[in-house]
């Protein structure tokens, strides 16, 4: 956390158990105002449990949570005044309108935001008086986000905010979340989407089995890791292992069918040498791809296991 910024959230040694299962194991992190902090991890890593403890939905077994300096475990209602949240599995009544919902939830807070302003800000004007059941997925998500702002919070907590959205709605939501940082808010979000985390977050905490295994900026995490760029090359005639290993900068090589994967310490030098080699051998190049190290590589390196594939765990 940059020292010049005001700390909005401070979590220390947070632990949460569900029966014999320890979902969160001594997690600690801070989030500053004007910063987006992402909890990144596959399903079951403990992201939602951490956010729920912070929001007063669950009581932690041990550890402390302070929001704007207030002990959120001892004084949950006071802490809730300062937090705006968009959580998973929290829908609304079919017949309620966005205007009614915003007015109703705002009425519980000391400094409610004007409903008309929220409707305009989150692009809900056309549907402000329509029943919730008639809203599209993107409109609903914008309403949920607007509900997180009914109390003019300084901290916004977003649990998988773009889950299930189409690409356009997703881009729109990303723009809104980036805008929150520009407004000086502290944003704590969870995601299992590495690209989303890389694009949105100033800092990331990578979660695995209830623990934060690494934290830092996305680029810092990648550069600190031992992962190296890889060049994937496919030529008309397969190169020999000796030819591949001898290329400048190459530190590792492996064949995957017709394609050679070349781990390199110097992408430019390796590609230059590769092109010369193929020209010399009169071996036409069919395909060439450069794979930069990613957060997925960082996760694999830290946990020793691949990022879970599939619709919910896709990197």
């Amino acid at each position, binding site marked *: 956390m940059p020292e010049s910024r005001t700390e909005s959230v401070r979590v220390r040694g947070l632990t949460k158990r569900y029966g014999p299962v320890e979902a969160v194991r001594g997690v600690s992190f801070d989030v500053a105002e004007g910063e987006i902090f992402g909890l990144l991890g596959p399903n079951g890593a403990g992201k939602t449990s951490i956010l729920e403890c912070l929001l007063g939905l669950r009581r932690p077994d041990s550890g402390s949570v302070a929001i704007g300096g207030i002990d959120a475990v001892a004084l949950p*209602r006071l802490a809730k005044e300062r937090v705006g949240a968009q959580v998973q599995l929290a829908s609304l009544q079919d017949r309620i309108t966005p205007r009614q919902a915003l007015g109703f939830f705002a*009425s*519980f*807070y000391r400094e409610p935001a004007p409903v008309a302003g929220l409707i305009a800000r989150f692009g809900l004007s056309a549907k402000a008086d329509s029943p919730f059941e008639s809203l599209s997925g993107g409109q609903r998500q914008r309403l949920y986000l607007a509900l997180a702002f009914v109390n003019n919070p300084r901290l916004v907590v977003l649990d998988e905010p773009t889950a299930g959205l189409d690409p356009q709605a997703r881009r729109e939501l990303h723009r809104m979340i980036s805008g929150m940082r520009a407004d000086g808010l502290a944003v704590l979000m969870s995601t299992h989407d590495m690209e989303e985390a890389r694009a949105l977050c100033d800092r990331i905490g990578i979660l695995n089995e209830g623990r934060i295994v690494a934290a830092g900026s996305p680029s810092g995490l990648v550069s600190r890791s031992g992962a190296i760029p890889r060049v994937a090359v496919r030529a008309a005639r397969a190169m020999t292992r000796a030819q591949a290993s001898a290329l400048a900068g190459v530190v590792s090589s492996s064949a995957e069918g017709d394609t050679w994967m070349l781990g390199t310490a110097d992408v430019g030098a390796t590609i230059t040498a590769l092109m010369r080699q193929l020209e010399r051998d009169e071996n036409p190049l069919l395909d060439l791809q450069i794979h930069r190290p990613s957060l997925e590589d960082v996760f694999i390196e830290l946990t020793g296991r691949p990022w879970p594939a599939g619709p919910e765990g896709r990197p």
Partner: protein
Amino acid sequence: MSRARVGRGLARHFLLTLALNFRSRQAIVYGYLVPVLFLLAFGGIFRGDTPLLQHEMGQLLTISILGGACFGLPTALVSERERGLWRRYRLLPASMGSLLASTLVARLVLLASAALMQVALARIIYGTPFPLNPAQALVAFLFVAFSFLGLGLLVAALADDVPAVQALGQCLFLPMIMLGGVGVPLTVLPAWAQAIAGFMPGRYAVEALQRCFSDSRGLQGAGFSLVALAVIGAAAGIAGARLFRWDAGRHTGRAAFAWVLAALLAWAAVGVAAAMTGRLEPLGPGGETFESITDEQIARISFDDLPGDNEFATRLAPPFRGADGERMGGFATALRAWAPGRVGDPAQAARNLLSVASNADVTANYREAEIARVVFDLLRERYKREQLVRMLAWIILNPDEGGVVAQAPELGLQRRPPEPIIRDRNSLYARKLLGRLLGKIPD
């Protein structure tokens, strides 16, 4: 400041709950259309009542309140929980208890509106009179609604999803409708079912509400029913509040069993208390008790053909003077302590006491006339005049109802004449005493 703000929020929650209820087609059907169908069905079934439905309004309103509280409330709560609305409420700086209370108050208003609609429609369609005492009817409604909303809250806490609400709700609804005196009138149920009904809140709900429609004394004498409703409602409500879950993913644990048991113990306690105070004595057909006897019914009772006090049947000594009374003192003391004469149902107690006079009369006991006089004196001593008048009229008009004591060796009445003869004499003695109370027979 903070309390006022949360109060504002809760007021909005209350109003929003009402507004959204009226926007839901399903809620309108179950909350208002179904009660109208029940009203029409009752109007078609109970055609003998005059004015129509006057003596069935207690049942009708109980069904509506029961349905709204045991199905409407938990269905709404569980469906809100399933869609994560209560999870969203949990994020608010307000307690779950206050939001739950606001939901219950909104449901109470909805129940009241459905009940008012039924009363108004009954008046319009069938000419059913309004409650004789509206204020007491409101009190009865509040007790009934409290009891059933408590049960509804417990159903909501136990049910994991809406289908489970239907299953649990039916476990409450159907037994009360069929055996609890709510759908099928108590008086046409067999004695065993009437006894079971004494353990169910439906019986007490019907009694409390019905009194406000057909008994000029209103809730006077309905204390037991009101307490029974309060006890059952409080036990269920506390259990429901303790087990209430805002999170659809969380299931009830083992503690639920203990809380459900505590709620059911309240039913058992009410039933046992009713049995111990003689309230579970079988009632006769007509759906009424002695308290529902009207002045018109009493006025129609004739005293013209009664046998004389010194004739063969139903002999009766003149009022005691001096030594006459002293001679019967031992018997009077024994009769005063005689258990069948002290059962909880006053009409049955009177019937039992009259049976003593009848037994002595039929068996030609050497003190038959004096025994009848002791019985008369004891009844007059034990009950207020107005109550005794209705009890005697009830016995005269319903000679075959209740039980009679055909033999009382503890009082020296060893012989056992046939029961029908005892009943016949009971009726005659009741008329003799009633005539004296009304001043139509000189004493």
